């Protein structure tokens, strides 16, 4: 029990540090960095529910991100509806899309599922590039509205974005924690571990895979809406690309697939690396940052396939045989 209460103390300490962080760091960049970590951490957690717990490797999660970004933006621009409502609507649309994708795709195993999700992601990309009403390839620039919580636009400071993103991360962690400890989580793990075994025990595997995907899609979509409000410009290349889906997968893998804290740790490691290489080497349009990034992805996956949490566990086992 001693170990558990120690963990709680650590969590509280980290929470307090993160709460006062924007007060200490008033410059935009440190805040931006943390916002990105929160955003990708939340999405990594979302991906983790379907990819980590239920074991269905989706490489098309950008669809849900893009759906969230576009739904809330279009509702704001065409109907003048608050992004908060648009965010929920985007989540609902994403669940619908999750159903359309999941119904046929869940019959596919392993690589076939992964490639089917890539294919669907690319179809979505092509459609968005050619859909004039939704801005097509030019993208959408969000209208500049008066600052405020209801409009979810803040022009003078990034601090409110920071707290909103932090809130999302906490919600995502709590949801994952809930899944991890509930019957649902055991069903997911059973599906991942042995599909036929799970089926023979009476688990409706199709339904539970759909639950996992829907939950994952909803969370990813919310992050997409937030991203649109944060950057105030969206286009298909920034919201629907395959690389985004891969990064979500990577964030979860780097930290530890199928664990509560894995994706958060993964984002906390990967996002600073990517932001710093972008700043250091990103200039001049030569893509040096992406060379380093690709190289790191490769090295991490080769040497750390079980993530930081896997490494820590192995280390612990060695210490106490």
């Amino acid at each position, binding site marked *: 029990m001693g170990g558990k209460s120690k963990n709680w103390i650590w969590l509280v300490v980290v929470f307090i540090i993160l709460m006062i962080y924007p007060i200490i760091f008033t410059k935009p960049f440190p805040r931006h960095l943390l916002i990105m970590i929160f955003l990708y951490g939340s999405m990594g957690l979302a991906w983790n529910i379907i990819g980590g717990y239920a074991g269905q490797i989706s490489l098309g999660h950008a669809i849900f991100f893009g759906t969230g970004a576009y739904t809330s933006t279009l509702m704001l621009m065409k109907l003048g509806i608050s992004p908060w409502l648009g965010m929920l609507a985007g989540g609902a649309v994403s669940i619908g899309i999750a159903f359309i994708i999941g119904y046929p795709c869940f019959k596919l195993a392993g690589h*076939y599922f992964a490639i*089917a999700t890539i294919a669907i992601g690319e179809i979505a990309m*092509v459609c968005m590039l050619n859909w004039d009403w939704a801005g097509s390839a030019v993208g959408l620039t969000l209208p500049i509205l008066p600052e405020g919580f209801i409009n979810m636009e803040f022009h003078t400071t990034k601090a409110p974005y920071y707290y909103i993103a932090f809130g999302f991360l906490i919600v995502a962690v709590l949801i994952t924690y809930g899944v991890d400890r509930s019957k649902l989580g055991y069903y997911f793990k059973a599906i991942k571990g042995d599909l036929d075994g799970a089926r023979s025990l009476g688990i409706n595997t199709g339904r539970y895979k759909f639950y996992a995907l829907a939950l994952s899609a909803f969370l990813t979509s919310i992050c997409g809406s937030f991203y649109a409000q944060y950057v105030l410009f969206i286009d298909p290349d920034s919201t629907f690309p395959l690389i985004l889906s891969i990064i979500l997968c990577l964030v979860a893998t780097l930290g530890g697939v199928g664990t509560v804290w894995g994706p958060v740790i993964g984002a906390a490691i990967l996002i600073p690396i990517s932001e710093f290489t972008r700043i250091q080497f990103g200039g001049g349009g030569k893509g040096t940052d992406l060379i380093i990034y690709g190289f790191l992805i*490769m090295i991490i996956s080769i040497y750390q396939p079980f993530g930081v949490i896997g490494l820590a566990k192995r280390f612990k086992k060695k210490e106490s045989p």
Partner: protein
Amino acid sequence: MQKGTSMLTPDIILQTVISGILMGCIYALVAVGLCLIWGLMEIVNFAHGEMLMLAMFTSFWAFALYHIDPLLSLPLCMIILFLIGVAVYFIVIRKLLKATFLAQILATFGLGIFLRYLAQFMWSPDFRVIKNPILSGNIGIGGIFVGIPQLVASICCIITFVLLYWFINKTEVGFALLATSEDREAANLMGINSHKMFALGWGIGAACLGVAGALMSNFYYIFPEVGFSFSLIAYVAVALGGFGSIPGSFIAGIIIGVVEFVTGLLIAPAFKYAFVFIIYLLVVFIRPQGLWGRY
């Protein structure tokens, strides 16, 4: 290809289908490398398109620096790509043999990003063409016009394909490859060095790309991101044909070529890849293991 539906005559449709088949042969050759690697060791190479890009650049630089026509630099291209394939196996893939599916995806994807932007860094993102290659111009047969480079490319692809099929199914080394793909442990016990076989598989898979890349450099733009759409098509072709089935990926390649060209003509060029993916999805939903899949 931009002709409206009012101009739709049987000739144009036939023309489009033939162009689709010619392109499909190249897709098939690109896909077969992926298919071979998968059949051998159950790894999907997500850097496949980038290796094709390297092949096209090899051919381009042989032309730009030493004035060797792509047709003549084809063997060179094949050898260089073979070596790249073997190197990739020993540097990256060997460490992933026992890794999870996820780690394999990410590692090869990372390799792809690395190669793509390395090429962009060294050679800039410009679009390049090979000017006045030996193979150029059109040939007309009964009102159907076919580009000579495309025609030669598809014929060479078919020849390569037949050679590959013969190599795998009729030679001793081919048997060893097949045995390793059937059962790695048993093959090891029979004295087949599975690492050698895997390296050979990667080499041959990449050499196929060398052939395809050299032939394509005659009529296709050469730029660092060229691989992306080809790799997507190659995954789809392999999954459509069924992972591990070499004839399957050949036929799937041709189906994809035809679908791409025909929907580009009948519906809209912008959506042609979307239709390729839709056809793929429809097939896998009906037959989850692909058309000729073993699993």
